C-alpha cells in the first residue's frame, strides 16, 4: 500500500513539474538583462518597458481583444440557442444535419476551418461585394463559428442536468415559451453561459491558425505577431509578454474559482436552512 502511494506521489510530482517548470522558467528569464534569453546575466525589467513601447504588439493586442470580445458574445448567443434546440426541441426536420454541423467543428482541424472560411469570404466578395477585404469582422465571424460548438456543448449538458419540471410548471401556468426561457431557464443556466463565454473568449484570444487565414493586411492579431517573432527565435520581449499573459490567466482563474466556491457554500447554507425549516413542521 505504501509502495503505491509513493509511486503516485512521485508521478504527481513529476507531472506537475513537467506542467509548470517551462512556464516558471519563462517567467524567470523574462527578468533577464541579457539579450540572449537563455543566458542569465542579471535582473532587469527593461523588456517590460520595451514591450509597452512596442506599437506593433499593442495594436495587435487591441485587435485580439476586440475580436475575442465580439466573437465570444456572438458565439455565446448562437451556442445557447443551438444548445437549447438540441436539448429541448425534440425532433425536427434536418436535425441530423444540424447536430452534425454543430459537432463537426469540435473535431475539425483548424487549418481546414481557416482555409474554408477564407475561400468563402473571397467567393462572397466576388459575388456580392461583402465583406470588403478581410479584417476584424471576418476574423470575428470565423471565431464565432468555430467556438459556438463548444458553447453549445456546455449549454446542452447543463440543460440536460436541469430539472425540466420547473419549465413545465411555468408553461402549465400559462407562461409563453419565450417568457419561460428568459425568466426561468436563462437564470438557471447563467453559470454555464459565463463558462461558455469565457471559453470562447480564451479560444479566440489564443487562436493563430484560423486568424492567419481570415485576417487582412491591416488586422494582425496578437498570436500572429508572437508567431512571426517566435519563428525567428526566442526574444526577451516575448518572454515579458508571456509572463503578463500567464499572470492575467492565473488571476482570472483564481477569482473565478473563489467566486464559484463562495456561491456553492452559499447554496449549501441555503439548502441546510431550508431543510431545517422543513424539520420544524
Amino acid at each position: 500500500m505504501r509502495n503505491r502511494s509513493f509511486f503516485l506521489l512521485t508521478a504527481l510530482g513529476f507531472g506537475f513539474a513537467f506542467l509548470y517548470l517551462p512556464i516558471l522558467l519563462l517567467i524567470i528569464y523574462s527578468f533577464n538583462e541579457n539579450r540572449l534569453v537563455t543566458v542569465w546575466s542579471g535582473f532587469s525589467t527593461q523588456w517590460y518597458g520595451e514591450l509597452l513601447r512596442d506599437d506593433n504588439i499593442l495594436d495587435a493586442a487591441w485587435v485580439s481583444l476586440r475580436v475575442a470580445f465580439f466573437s465570444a458574445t456572438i458565439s455565446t448567443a448562437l451556442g445557447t440557442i443551438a444548445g437549447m434546440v438540441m436539448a429541448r426541441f425534440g425532433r425536427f426536420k434536418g436535425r441530423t444535419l444540424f447536430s452534425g454541423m454543430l459537432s463537426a467543428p469540435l473535431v475539425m482541424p483548424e487549418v481546414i476551418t481557416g482555409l474554408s472560411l477564407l475561400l468563402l469570404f473571397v467567393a462572397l466578395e466576388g459575388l456580392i461585394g461583402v465583406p470588403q477585404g478581410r479584417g476584424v469582422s471576418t476574423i470575428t465571424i470565423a471565431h464565432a463559428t468555430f467556438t459556438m460548438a463548444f458553447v453549445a456543448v456546455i449549454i446542452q449538458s447543463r440543460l440536460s442536468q436541469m430539472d425540466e419540471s420547473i419549465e413545465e410548471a411555468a408553461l402549465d401556468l400559462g407562461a409563453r415559451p419565450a417568457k419561460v426561457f428568459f425568466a426561468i431557464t436563462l437564470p438557471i443556466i447563467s453559470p454555464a453561459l459565463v463558462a461558455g463565454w469565457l471559453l470562447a473568449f480564451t479560444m479566440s484570444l489564443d487562436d493563430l491558425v484560423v486568424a492567419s487565414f481570415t485576417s487582412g493586411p491591416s488586422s494582425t492579431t496578437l498570436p500572429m505577431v508572437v508567431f512571426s517573432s517566435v519563428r525567428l527565435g526566442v526574444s526577451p520581449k516575448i518572454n515579458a509578454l508571456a509572463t503578463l499573459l500567464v499572470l492575467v490567466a492565473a488571476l482570472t482563474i483564481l477569482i473565478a474559482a473563489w467566486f464559484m466556491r463562495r456561491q456553492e457554500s452559499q447554496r449549501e447554507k441555503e439548502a441546510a436552512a431550508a431543510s431545517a425549516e422543513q424539520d420544524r413542521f
Partner: protein
Amino acid sequence: MSERVMDDDAGLRDGGLADAAPPTDGEARAGGLGRWLSARLRRGGRGLVIAIPYTWLLLFFLLPFAIVAKISFAEYQLGIPPYTPLVEWAEDTYLRITLAIGNYQFLLEDPLYIEAYLGSLKMATVSTILTLLVGYPMAYGIARAKPSTRNVLLLLVILPFWTSFLIRVYAWIGILKSNGILNNFLMWTGIINEPLPLLYNEFSVYLGITYSYLPFMILPLYANLEKLDKTLLEAAADLGCRPWKTFLTVTLPLSLPGIVAGSLLVFIPAVGEFVIPDLLGGPETLMIGRVLWSEFFNNRDWPVASAVAIAMLVFLVVPIMIFQHYQAKGEKR
C-alpha cells in the same frame, strides 16, 4: 440558399407537429381562433429559433466546404483569385464545366502528401500514448487525494489550459535549443561536453504535443477514476489480490471509457496540428496540417491546398466522426 429556405419551412412544419400534441390549459380556454393564433405563433417562434443557428451554420460551415470542394477541382493560375473558374460561358452560348482532377492525381503521385498523412497519424498516435502514460498516474493520484487537495490539484491541471497555447510551445524552444536552458545546465554539471540536438526533430514535437494536450487527457480520466466504486478494490484486496493485479484486472478495465475519451481528445487535435510541428519540428517532420499551410501561404496554390483539405476531411475527419458516433451509441447501451 434555396436549401436553407426549404429547411426553415420544414422546421416550421415539423415544429407544429411536435407542439400540437398536448394543448396547455391556457390554449384550451382561449378557444378556436385564439388557440389557432397562439399555436401558429408558437410554431413560427420555434421555427425562427431553430433557423438562427441553422442559417449561421449553413452559411459559415457547410457552404465553405462546398466552395473548397469546388476549388479543389480548379486549376492554378496567376491572378486574383488564383484559380480557374469551374463554370464559364464559352462564347456566350453554352456553359462549359471544367473539372480538373489533376490536383487529386498530384496528391497521389507526389509521395510528399501520403507521407505527410501517414506521418501525422504516427506522430499523433505516439504522442497520444505518451500523454496517456504521463496522464494516467496523475489522474489516478488526483482521484485518490483528499477532497480538499483534489480541488487544488484539478485547478492546477486546468490552469495551463487557459494560458496561451503558443506561449507554452514557445517556452520549450528556450529550454531545448542548443544554447538553451537544459543544454546549458547539463554542460554546467559536466554530464555532457557538447550540446545535445534536442530541438527541431521528432523528439521535440512529441514533447510539445504531450505537454500541450496533457490536461485534455487528465480531466476525462480523472472524471472516470473518481466515480470508480471503491468497494470493488476493497473486495479484491480482501480476497487476497495484490495491488498491481487489482489495478490490472479491476481499475484498468473499468477506466477504459476514460482512456478512450482522453485519447480521442488528444489524438484529434494532434493529427491536424500545425503550430507544434512548425515551431518545434525540423524540416523532416512532415505533418499534413503543415503541408496544407505551406501549400497555401508559401506556394499560393489554392486548388492543391483545397484538394489536401478535402482529402483530410475524407480520410481523417469523417472516420473520426463515425467512430465517435458509434462509440457514443455503445456507451448509451
